[in-house]
């Protein structure tokens, strides 16, 4: 099992989610983060005050996957998040020691295998 951590542009998020969905990657967490990855600073001016915005809004995705899912997951993110300019983000693939699914107590491989989608309750 691996944990795929990806930091992407906020404006690419919808495309990334769509690509992950198409790659049948289900189950992820995302958080809004701020960071700096060497991209050109934005200059903003408020009345007499000029500032350089060093931090940009990014989205951090965390996806726990079984080993054979790592490659499609990474490929989906690479394809959808890239604009070709500095600041497109990073993908980190980390080893995972142990995984539990809280609902069932399943462990490891079973815990990161998606369950069949249950019809949403109306």
């Amino acid at each position: 099992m691996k944990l795929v951590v990806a930091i992407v542009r906020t404006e690419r998020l919808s495309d990334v989610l769509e690509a992950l969905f198409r790659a049948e990657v289900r189950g992820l967490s995302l958080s809004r983060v701020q960071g700096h990855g060497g991209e050109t600073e934005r200059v903003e001016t408020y009345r007499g005050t000029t500032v350089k915005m060093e931090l940009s809004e990014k989205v951090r995705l965390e996806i726990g996957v079984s080993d054979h899912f790592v490659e499609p997951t990474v490929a989906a993110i690479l394809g959808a998040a890239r604009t070709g300019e500095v600041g497109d983000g990073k993908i980190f693939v980390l080893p995972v020691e142990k995984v539990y699914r809280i609902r069932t107590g399943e462990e490891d491989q079973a815990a990161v295998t998606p369950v069949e989608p249950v019809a949403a309750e109306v």
Partner: protein
Amino acid sequence: MTGVNGADVAWMLVATAMVLLMTPALGLFYGGMVRAKNALNTLMMSVVAVGFVGVAWALLGYTLAFAPGNALLGGLSRAGLAGVGLEAQGTIPHLLFMAYQGTFAVITAALISGAIVERMRFGPYLAFLTLWSLVVYAPLAHWVWGGGWLGALGALDYAGGTVVHVNAGAAARVAALLLRPRKDFARQAILPHNLPMTLIGTGLLWFGWFGFNAGSALGATAAAALAFTNTLLAPAAGLVVWSLLDLRRTGRVTAAGAATGIVVGLVAITPAAGLVGPLGALAVGALGVVPSYYALLWRARTRIDDSLDVVAAHGLGGLTGALLTGVLAQKSWNGVADGLLFGNPRQLVVQAVAVLAAALFSAAGTVVVLRVVALVAPLRVAAREEGLGLDVSQHGEEAYARDEGAILVLPDAGTARPAPAPALVTEGSRA
């Protein structure tokens, strides 16, 4: 000054200020409905109209609209406000009349922006806005109010249902078409980022609209009281009907719907304000919102990115209001003309002609103005800037700026990083 009435001056001064307030209010109304990254840009599209259209109006727009001329266009005798002084125009100073009409030109131009938010470069927008107020708004105002052919035909447009709303609606349809849809349109959900802002804008619009409609009496008269009351009743009825339609369709009354119902009710009563009785106003508000409600639902399923539904709200609302004016106008209230319901079917035909002529002229004029501006500079922002948001790309500001990571650029130190802040800064030591 002979012929100037103090009470009329007092009311028209206030009414002018009230109509002016509608333009920033429109900015709030629109600004709440776009995404956070485009909020400032959307507000600015309205706010700048006060300056750019206001100046163009004083220098050239007023004379094209209201100076003596032919049936199609005013002359140039009032260019640069020549001869516009404190002498009486009706019962108010000529200068005040000019200022009052100027506030109408400002908001009409700003209304169009709702169709083209989140994608237009700001420089070309300024050029478009200014030229449009001269090439499209001023002639149309002349046709109806300045001694032109629609006024002579007997078209009834009390406060601008045709000149302002049908006009802006037709221009918006064309502008949305020429600007093409936003890149995310119909691909991703685009949601309003701040509906409370939209509701604040709605409240301020309604307040200002009392000046818009009741001020169109051009004096502190009984007719102004009628227009004022109708401006209270029609949007109230519009709000009720819109809420009930919402309730029937989704089981919930929505805030965005309430704001829209009020504004469409206001649009619908605008041409009829001083021409129908109070019960007529309730009917105009109640009936006037129905076509707009269904047009909004239909538009959302099409490929037309009239982003904030200017066509459905203002174009269609203005059309319905203008036609209902031809049905419900009542001579016993207005002393001018009856509508279909009171035995004058010709009025309805005249109203239809006026709306059609205004829409066609506005659409054609808008195409010309936008094409001319596009010859000089591209109208659209780059796709990357659209993704980043127009606040940052067009204005270098953010509506919701955070100071984390913002490094102060000091004039003497150039772009060098400032030294770490001293451990202790005594209160008040920074100027």
